[in-house]
């Protein structure tokens, strides 16, 4: 380590002085001038006349240029020349050993490339600050329920309170996203829109490049309808015409006046969106009345206010809030507002996955380093005499070490360049596998941070493997080398090479164990029965309904027609509509049981479904009945609950006939037109529809025909078909026939929605398995190399043995046994380390222990088998050595 730091320091000093050349020269000149002046002054004091005193001093000092030259050499020149010489020498030497250079570069480039790819993702997702000016002053405001529970959002009342009362927040904003069509009918285009409150642009410190942002009047309730549009929309729809400002654009049902155009690269990171249009969100404050915790709030802190100070002031304001609105603060432990980073809120679970991957890929690099060091050691054996001669003619040991390190760094640098290319390609591969909701996906790519990282690890790699490769040879004495005709360091090197094999085997086993556990867990998840049959079901997704469907009756009439039309398509077995697809977030509503105060517990999963839902998804009805076409708006209100709900409140099984109070909060019906109780008419089996890994929650189903329009979105349509024939065009036709105003839907399979639920897991499994297999491959190459090298080294010995009648088998066996002993030691060590490390992925495992013995045994056998092959192949070669030839070597 000390050698490394000295080496680094020296390199740094050289580099710095090279860059500061001018300054250094100027300073030296000034110093010399000072010297001459002082000498002249002394000469004056000694009685010489002015001009003569100066002349004398200058003459005495000698040629300033010559001194400059000599001094420069001392400060920089000579050293720089020698680093240049080192590099030139390294390149020359390496060109004489292209095979060695290629093998090293390929090995390292693989490791560096993989690291670059993963780090790019980590950098973009976790490390990059928000892409706005002074991002450190941006913070999200969430709500702390106490006991470690928090939510990254505020209620409307909280939002207003904190906006009004905290002096540390310069500006705050909240937003809603919406989709709205531009144009009409089948040719309409759906725009991504944002409604933003207050000083949205001030918080982000971003201003429209053309026009302006919203004025105070436009932000106030009742203000004019104005919009800021994206650069893309401005170019495509308004022809990029600056005169478009002030023009009216009809988006959805509203005509907006365009007042500004966003910068081209504008993105709103918190929603991962690139909004087409931004319009004011006008919130009305009714003090004391409050809704849910539904407002994401982004704030810009005042300049020079630290996060800590802001947090402590918010705590003060929160106390005041709790005192002012005791009835709005549920739970005695509630702490109040809390400042949060982007990571806290949006990256969440991805964080641990990414760190695990970064750790895994660092292990791969470690193995690559071990292999490169092994290559270098193998080569060093052949170079001993060269080194000895150089020592003999006066090269310092330090100098030779430096030469070898320079060689290693040169190779690592080339590998770094190749690795960068691999990394850039690799990022795309990683992103192709990554779940669609990976945060800030669009910001992932090659940036300064990634470049710095890659050059950093390239240098580090070069030093680490260079030292491991160079030191063992340098230590032993010159005399040994010469005496033993170039085999002087073999024993020392062999020990190092053996150690490296043990280490890389251990690391490979750790990676294999981690990947093995994830694969095991993933298999468990795949075979999990979600409670519904997703095969052969096409999901028809509607982004938005025509504004004309503004009553429940009109919407239901269309849904009925739609189901009828689709039902006529040959091969369609059944059609069902629901408020959401299984495994995609559904709505929670307050649902209580009549006469059971203990059952008034707020949010319960609520699903509005068509009568055919259970049949289409093949969810068994356990008791009672399913919905009928007759359960419509005019009929008595009915509901079906799932098994979990029924057994929770009625463990004895008499759920049917009980009455529910849906959407009744604190004694009041949330939607007056939907007031009244609902009778339970059936119980269905549980469905894992929140997430595959999450146990079913208490769920209440109601007929779509009885649901109030306010809580009905576009139907999540599911069509069960026979086999795999292409049904999409026929269904698309049926949709168009149902109503011309409906925008074309998108199609996917229900299985793909189920698969999407496992996207995170799949991502982890694929990436980690890829790393583990790379590690295995590299380790195999390492073992192969070491044994092949032993064979070459021991050619004479083997030849003699064979000449003396040793069996080929026994020679082979001896070599293989040695390799396998090393592998066994490495595997044992790796298993120990893995036992300690796998608990970091324990939370990512489903139904498999972090120290699952079967998995460990399987990966260990895999490693063993691969190692055996890698050792046996070169060992076999040894026995083909002809004794006569072996003896001729050297």
């Amino acid at each position, binding site marked *: 380590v000390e050698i490394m730091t000295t080496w680094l320091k020296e390199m740094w*000093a050289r580099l710095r002085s090279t860059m500061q050349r001018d300054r250094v020269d100027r*300073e*030296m000149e*000034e*110093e*010399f001038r*000072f*010297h001459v*002046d*002082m*000498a002249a002054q*002394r*000469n004056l004091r000694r009685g010489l006349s002015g001009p003569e005193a100066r002349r*004398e001093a200058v003459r*005495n*000092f*000698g040629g300033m240029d*010559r*001194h400059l030259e*000599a*001094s420069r*050499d*001392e*400060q920089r020149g000579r050293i720089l020349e020698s680093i240049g010489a080192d590099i030139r020498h390294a390149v020359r030497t390496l060109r004489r050993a292209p095979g060695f250079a290629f093998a090293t570069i390929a090995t390292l480039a693989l490791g560096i490339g993989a690291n670059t790819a993963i780090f790019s993702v980590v950098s973009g997702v976790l490390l990059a600050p928000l892409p706005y000016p002074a991002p450190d002053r941006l913070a999200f405001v969430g709500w702390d329920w106490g006991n470690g529970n928090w939510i990254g959002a505020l209620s409307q009342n909280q939002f207003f309170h904190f906006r009004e009362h905290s002096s540390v927040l310069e500006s705050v904003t909240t937003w809603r996203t919406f989709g709205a069509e531009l144009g009409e009918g089948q040719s309409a285009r759906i725009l991504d829109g944002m409604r933003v409150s207050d000083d949205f642009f001030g918080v982000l410190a971003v201003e429209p490049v053309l026009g302006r942002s919203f004025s105070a009047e436009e932000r106030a309730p009742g203000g004019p309808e104005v919009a800021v549009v994206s650069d893309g929309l401005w170019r495509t729809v308004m022809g990029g015409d600056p005169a478009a400002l002030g023009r009216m654009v009809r988006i959805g049902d509203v005509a907006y006046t365009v007042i500004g155009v966003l910068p081209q690269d504008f993105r709103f990171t918190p929603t991962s969106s690139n909004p087409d249009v931004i319009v004011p969100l006008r919130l009305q404050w009714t003090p004391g009345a409050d809704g849910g915790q539904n407002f994401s709030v982004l704030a810009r802190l005042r300049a020079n206010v630290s996060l800590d100070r802001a947090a402590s002031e918010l705590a003060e304001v929160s106390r005041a809030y709790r005192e002012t609105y005791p009835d709005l603060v549920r739970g005695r432990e509630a702490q109040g507002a809390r400042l949060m980073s982007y990571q806290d809120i949006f990256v969440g679970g991805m964080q641990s996955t990414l760190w695990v991957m970064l750790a895994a890929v660092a292990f791969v690099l470690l193995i690559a380093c071990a292999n490169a060091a092994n290559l270098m050691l193998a080569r060093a054996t052949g170079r001993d005499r060269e080194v000895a001669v150089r020592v003999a003619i006066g090269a310092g040991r330090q100098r030779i070490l430096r030469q070898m390190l320079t060689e290693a760094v040169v190779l690592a640098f080339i590998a770094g360049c190749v690795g960068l290319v691999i990394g850039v390609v690799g990022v795309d591969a990683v992103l192709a596998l990554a779940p669609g909701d990976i945060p800030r996906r669009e910001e992932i790519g090659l940036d300064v941070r990634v470049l710095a990282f890659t050059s950093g690890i390239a240098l580090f790699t070069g030093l680490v493997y260079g030292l491991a490769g160079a030191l063992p040879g340098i230590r032993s004495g010159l005399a040994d080398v010469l005496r033993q005709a170039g085999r002087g360091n073999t024993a020392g090197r062999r020990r190092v090479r053996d150690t490296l094999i043990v280490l890389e085997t251990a690391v490979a086993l750790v990676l294999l164990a981690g990947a093995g556990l994830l694969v095991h867990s993933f298999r468990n998840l795949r075979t999990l029965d979600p409670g519904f049959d997703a095969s052969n079901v096409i999901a028809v997704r509607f982004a938005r309904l025509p504004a004309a469907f503004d009553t429940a009756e009109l919407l239901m009439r269309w849904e009925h027609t739609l189901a009828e039309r689709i039902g006529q398509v040959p091969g369609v077995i059944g059609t069902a509509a629901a408020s959401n697809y299984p495994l995609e977030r559904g709505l929670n509503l307050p649902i209580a049981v009549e006469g059971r105060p203990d059952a008034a517990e707020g949010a319960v999963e609520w699903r509005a479904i068509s009568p055919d839902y259970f049949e289409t998804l093949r969810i068994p009805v356990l008791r009672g009945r399913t919905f009928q076409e007759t359960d419509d708006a005019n009929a008595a209100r009915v509901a079906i609950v799932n098994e979990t709900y029924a057994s929770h409140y009625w463990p004895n099984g008499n759920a049917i006939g009980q009455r529910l109070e849906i959407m009744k909060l604190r004694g009041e019906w949330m939607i007056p037109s939907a007031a009244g109780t609902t009778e339970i008419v059936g119980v269905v089996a549980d469905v894992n529809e929140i997430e595959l890994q999450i146990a079913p929650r208490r769920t209440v189903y109601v007929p779509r025909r009885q649901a109030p329009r306010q809580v009905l979105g576009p139907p999540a349509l599911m069509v069960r078909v026979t086999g795999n024939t292409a049904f999409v065009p026929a269904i698309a036709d049926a949709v168009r026939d149902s109503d011309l105003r409906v925008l074309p839907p998108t199609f996917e399979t229900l299985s793909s929605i189920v698969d999407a639920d496992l996207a995170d897991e799949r991502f982890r499994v694929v990436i980690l398995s890829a790393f583990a297999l790379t590690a295995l491959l590299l380790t195999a190459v390492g073992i192969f190399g070491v044994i092949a090298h032993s064979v070459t080294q021991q050619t004479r010995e083997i030849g003699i043995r064979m000449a003396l009648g040793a069996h080929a088998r026994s020679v082979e066996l001896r070599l293989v046994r040695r390799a396998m002993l090393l592998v066994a030691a490495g595997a044992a060590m790796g298993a120990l380390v893995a036992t300690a490390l796998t608990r970091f992925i324990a939370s990512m495992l489903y139904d498999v222990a972090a120290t699952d013995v079967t998995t460990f045994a399987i990966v260990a056998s895999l490693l063993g088998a691969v190692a055996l092959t890698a050792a046996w192949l070169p060992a076999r070669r040894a026995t083909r050595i002809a004794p006569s030839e072996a003896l001729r070597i050297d």
Partner: protein
Amino acid sequence: MHEDPRGGAMIKGTLDLLILRVLEREPMHGWGITERIEQRSGALLSVNQGSLYPALYRLVRRGWIRAQWKVTENNRRARFYALTPKGRAMLDEEREQWERLSRGVNLVLGDA
């Protein structure tokens, strides 16, 4: 001032020792070091500027002394050199070595 044919020569390597010794008392600029060496040696030794500055830079690079721009009593900017702890240690070592060497040389000379 002309070069003294006797004083000009200096045994290689002793310049470093002399510089360190001068700086042991107080930080000093290049000119001051020259003057001090000449004074203290009773003008027996004179320092060749062509080797003084390279020597100073070498010592800085080794971390035995460090350089800093300061203002002299006459209000001129000059680069002052000061001994570092490492330099102090090296001075002791060098001094010991020099004494051993000069004892040896003296013995040999006395012998002859």
